[in-house]
């Protein structure tokens, strides 16, 4: 078929282009500007080249924050994905209870981040919090403001509480789309429960699970509000994740140059990991389709 050449169609893209430029590209350019210059205010800039980047790459502080960040993301993925699948598998498939479960599961997702943080901040307090008091009462020495391990556990449990629903709901949607005939065939083939999961449910859920993992990875990798409200990054630096550290550097210490260099590298890391994810996902698809 002959294709019509009409370059006017490009004009249709213009509104989006303008919007994205104003909301994303131009602000990003400001960051780029700060990353390569030093300033003492008054809009006076001195070219520093890659000095800030060099500083940041060799900064122990940034490396430690990155390490904590990766650890955090890996831990919550390792908990939320299997737990979400497990919950989805055990949710009722239809009827009143299914609707009720869906609503209950959706609830944590509807709560604003800082409210989630506040809830857990109070919940875990040893003086007035239900959780903190209860644990203390049981003789467990729990205090998230003093003990790094307790702080980590609190932050992780909070994230699991907040976000497992997302994985569960996505997995549930994947499960619901499996035709009944597959389960019937499996029963006729005398497949075990594990085989049904391994050969029917998991392959059919793969698409949504990859989306879930990608979403949870990105969200957890940029986590800021909840741990900031609960622990403020402490005790010490133990729960200072990348974005908390970045915000401290930029708005606390006003080290705009290093912070800008830091955030550009942060952005590139996320971009890189997402790209790797995407490539792996599409390649897996293609390989299996062959």
């Amino acid at each position, binding site marked *: 078929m002959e294709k019509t050449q009409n370059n006017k169609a490009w004009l249709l893209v213009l509104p989006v282009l303008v919007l994205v430029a104003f909301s994303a590209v131009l602000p990003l350019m400001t960051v780029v500007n700060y990353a390569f210059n030093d300033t003492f205010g008054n809009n006076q800039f001195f070219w520093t080249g890659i000095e800030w980047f060099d500083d940041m790459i060799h900064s122990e502080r940034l490396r430690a924050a990155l390490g904590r960040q990766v650890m955090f993301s890996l831990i919550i993925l390792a908990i939320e994905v299997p737990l979400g699948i497990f919950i989805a598998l055990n949710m009722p498939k239809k009827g009143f209870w299914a609707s009720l479960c869906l609503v209950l599961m959706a609830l944590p997702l509807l709560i604003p981040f800082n409210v989630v943080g506040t809830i857990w901040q109070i919940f875990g307090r040893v003086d007035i919090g239900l959780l903190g008091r209860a644990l203390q009462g049981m003789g467990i020495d729990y205090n998230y403001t003093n003990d790094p391990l307790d702080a980590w556990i609190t932050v992780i449990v909070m994230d699991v509480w907040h976000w497992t629903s997302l994985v569960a709901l996505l997995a549930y949607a994947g499960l619901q789309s499996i*035709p009944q*005939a*597959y389960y*019937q*065939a499996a*029963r*006729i*083939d*005398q*497949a*075990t429960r594990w*085989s049904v999961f391994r*050969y*029917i449910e998991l*392959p*059919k859920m793969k698409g949504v699970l990859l989306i879930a993992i990608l979403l949870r990875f990105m969200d957890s990798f940029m986590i800021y509000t909840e741990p900031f409200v609960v622990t403020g990054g402490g005790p010490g630096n133990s729960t200072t994740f990348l974005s908390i550290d970045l915000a401290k550097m930029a708005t606390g210490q006003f080290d705009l140059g290093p912070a800008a260099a830091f955030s550009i590298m942060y952005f590139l890391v996320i971009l890189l990991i997402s790209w790797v994810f995407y490539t792996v996902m599409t390649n897996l698809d293609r390989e*299996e*389709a*062959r």
Partner: protein
Amino acid sequence: MSRITLSNLAHSYLPNPASEADFALKEMDHVWEDGGAYALLGASGCGKTTLLNIISGLLRPSQGRVLFGDRDVTDAPTTERNIAQVFQFPVVYDTMTVRDNLAFPLRNRGMDAAYIARRVDQIARMIGMEDMLTRKARGLTADAKQKISLGRGMVREDVNAILFDEPLTVIDPHMKWELRTQLKSLHREFGHTMIYVTHDQTEALTFADKVVVMHDGRVVQMGTPEDLFETPAHTFVGYFIGSPGMNLLDAEISGSEASVQGAKIALGATYGPMTGRTQIGIRPDYVTISDEGLPVKVKRVEDVGRHRIVRAEFQGQPLNAILPEGMSVPAEARAGFPPAKINVYANDWRVAPAGG
């Protein structure tokens, strides 16, 4: 392998069925002989799949018993019934290879590896997929996947019955014919009881020794293709089987004569008095169009290749006739009704002649 008996069986999808209309499957008593090739024929939504799922144990009937041989299996789960079932749409385990798919039912039953390998090769040869055994099932075409499903259905040698739920819906027409022939020869070779659900009469008539026609949740007739053609037990069978279906004319029956709005037609036998809506049925294949018989108004003639179909009107009621090749329609067309080929129906059910 064993005989399948359905005793007093009925099923409703509603928890508290109030009237007969609530039943997807109306009460029935049937025996399916061991080793028979049955086709379950009927329009969509007539209860075919429900009946099939009851036999395979995927569904528990709301009343009645299912017996395999002498054993009551009404409450036995699918796995205990040792049944194979092939579904309308291909069900394959995507992440497994074709070989693993075929071997899956055998492995789950803990068969020995050498036997599995042998049997899988045999089945693969049968469905013509020997050179695809190492491929992942995902990404194969729909008919290749359905062939795998068929193969998985047939891989176990000791099954009580193999149930097919419209298995060839997604298959190419030429492939359909080939697979059906293969199923048929398999049936001859292994002698499994096979129940084949379809809404395609050609499929049913070519596959089965016995065709079971279902209509509105009821088995209306169970018989050989010939029975269904010559003596349909219900007007639905007459209408559903054959192309075009049986002519059904409202008529008054008295003794050995039918009167269609005054036009007298001789019947091959004598009938007792009957009530309700009475009709006579005759296959278009047996209606003769010539210059002898009763006058009809020819509407149009359709040429379908091997023969022609005459669409006519007789006493204000539609009448179809099949005109053999080489015959022509006279200007003053008249229709002949061979008495021996006429069936009589009262309220849609066939009436047997009085005194045979």
